């Protein structure tokens, strides 16, 4: 296996990681500020992808499609927050799990009702398609490079938002002490809606961006949701920094595991068995990673001590 190939795979892992980060950041923000477990986060990802596909088909503009994804997911987020989530903040996690599980069912069926059961078409724009040659001779799709760029930019933006703006200060205050910021006269209801909409918009953006190189279909959100949960649990729930590190870890483990585990097995067994055993183990690898992290640090890498 050549060094070039390994480098390319690291890039792939990185790209998968930053997209996961978009999902995980919203999830962890919502948990950190409101203490809410939102299983329906994957549905917002799906809403973003479908909105983008719909607008792209109507206008032919990818940028407009991205805007539509952001707006549609944020709007869906606001609706969900004001109608349902609000009543759940004071409940225990169990009620939240059930209610948001119910929301997944509703979102999936409504989308199927509106768009039908066939996958939709959404492609990267021409100006972002095809490969470029990177230094060292790696041929790499421009679109994936763009994804890495967007992911890192959003990460930076979130960091700036939470550290440098009034909203960020309020968000962090909300994480630490809800009564305190209510006492300071901040409209906590509006803050919650805003945070939820922000998380939803990030999920919608991820859905649209990833949808362009994958399949836009009902149910696309759930596998990503599970991965995003793995990410925030590894990183420590509520920590944006943890979500970032966790997302990269999961992205790299998932990508590199699929490549190297079969090779590793080939050292001890015949190739056919090795490919299969390697593939089996690699599909379990991120869960193994997560349980190892939790056994070592029961509240994740950057989580507050229980």
């Amino acid at each position, binding site marked *: 296996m050549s060094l070039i190939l390994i480098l390319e795979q690291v890039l792939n892992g990185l790209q998968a990681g930053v997209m996961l980060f978009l999902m995980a950041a919203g999830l962890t923000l919502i948990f950190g500020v409101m203490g809410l477990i939102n299983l329906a986060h994957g549905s917002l990802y799906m809403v973003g992808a479908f909105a983008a596909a719909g607008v792209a088909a109507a206008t032919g503009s990818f940028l407009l499609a991205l805007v539509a994804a952001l707006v549609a997911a944020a709007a869906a987020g606001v609706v969900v927050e004001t109608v349902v989530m609000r009543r759940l903040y004071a409940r225990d996690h169990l009620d939240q799990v059930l209610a948001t599980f119910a929301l997944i069912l509703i979102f999936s069926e409504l989308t199927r009702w509106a768009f039908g*059961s*066939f996958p939709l*078409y959404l*492609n990267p724009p021409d100006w972002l398609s095809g490969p470029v040659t990177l230094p060292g001779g790696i041929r790499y799709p421009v679109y994936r490079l763009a994804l890495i760029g967007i992911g890192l930019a959003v990460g930076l933006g979130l960091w700036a938002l939470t550290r440098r703006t009034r909203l960020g200060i309020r968000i962090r205050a909300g994480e630490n002490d809800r009564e305190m910021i209510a006492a300071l006269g901040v409209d906590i209801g509006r803050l919650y809606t805003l945070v939820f909409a922000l998380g939803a918009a990030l999920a919608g953006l991820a859905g649209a961006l990833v949808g362009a190189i994958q399949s836009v279909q*009902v149910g696309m959100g759930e596998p990503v949701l599970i991965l995003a949960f793995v990410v925030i649990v590894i990183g420590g729930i509520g920590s944006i920094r943890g979500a970032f590190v966790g997302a990269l870890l999961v992205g790299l483990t998932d990508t590199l595991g699929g490549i190297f585990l079969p090779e590793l097995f080939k050292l001890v067994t015949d190739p056919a068995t090795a490919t299969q055993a390697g593939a089996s183990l690699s599909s379990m690898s991120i869960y193994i990673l997560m349980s190892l992290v939790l056994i070592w640090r029961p509240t994740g890498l950057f989580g507050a001590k229980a």
Partner: protein
Amino acid sequence: MKGLYVAAALAALATGAAAEVKVGMITTLSGGGAGLGIDVRDGFLLALEQSGRDDIEVIVEDDAQAPDTAVQLADRMIQSDRVQVLTGIVWSNLAMAVVPSAVNQGIFYLSPNAGPSQLAGANCHENYFNVAWQNDNLHEAAGAWANQTGYANSFILAPNYPAGQDALTGYKRFYEGELAGEIYTELGQTDYAAEIAQIRASGADSVFFFLPGGMGISFLKQYADSGVDIPVIGPAFSFDQGILQAVGDAALGVVNTSQWSKDIDNPTNAAFVESFQAEYGRLPSLYASQGFDTANLLISALEVADPSEDPDAFRAALEAADFDSTRGDFEFGPNHHPIQDIYAREVVQEGDVFTNRIIGVALEDRGDAYAEECAM
């Protein structure tokens, strides 16, 4: 399409007790795989409508692609609705859950899609008929086509589950060249960047892949975008009418193998394509053709005998397969699986629509590899 179902049900209701034959259709109408089941159902009901028979009651239920739901529906249809014939299942794992126990209870099962190897071989049954293909067939044809094209160094990949493992085995059964690589991907995987990088580095002269549903869409889009220009070949599942539009340009020119295509030149097929489009406003898919053929096979056998009165005669009529298939000649092998030609098709664009065109025959009169194991 809902209208048609209601019409069929109403027709059955109107005749009331006169409905002589009850057929249970268990298929996938919700969730990610719903497109396939809807096509099977629509093709099936279209044939029924065209036959003009109002004494066949079809009970259609959604299995949501969950094996235990399918089993439960089968139990209900057998115990409560007292159907004599079951059909409709799209997925091998659901078929394996339902078929063995159903046929052992004396029910006839006509498979419009799934053809797991167990049901073709050691666990074949006199009441089980597969109208589509044995699972390996299209992959075998892909291997044969690779030989005809002169490919000598294939990179092959499929998801890590039984159908995926069968796919690679099927390809290798006919393919005579070298393997540049063999990968099992995760079931439900959506990102293939890592695999594509390996393909690029492998020095292969061809890529064979079996990635049904959304997996195939993702793979093709990403493959096209990666700039790797090694020719790709695969079974029809990823190039079907239902999903081609979602893949778009990325699929253009790809060769895929199928036992059916909308340009197979026979009157039955031409009429089917035209009437399906008129009824549902979309081009029929592979699955729709299989549903259509299944219904016509059923009707042809019902002309001869009633399954509850004379199951042996009904079975014999099914074995005779005396109906006009959209595929032209149609014949059952000793294990009740088709013996048929499998074509190589190419993805082309007709106006705004992406579709397939036959470019040659990959395998002629192909039965399957498991018939010998079947002691029937």
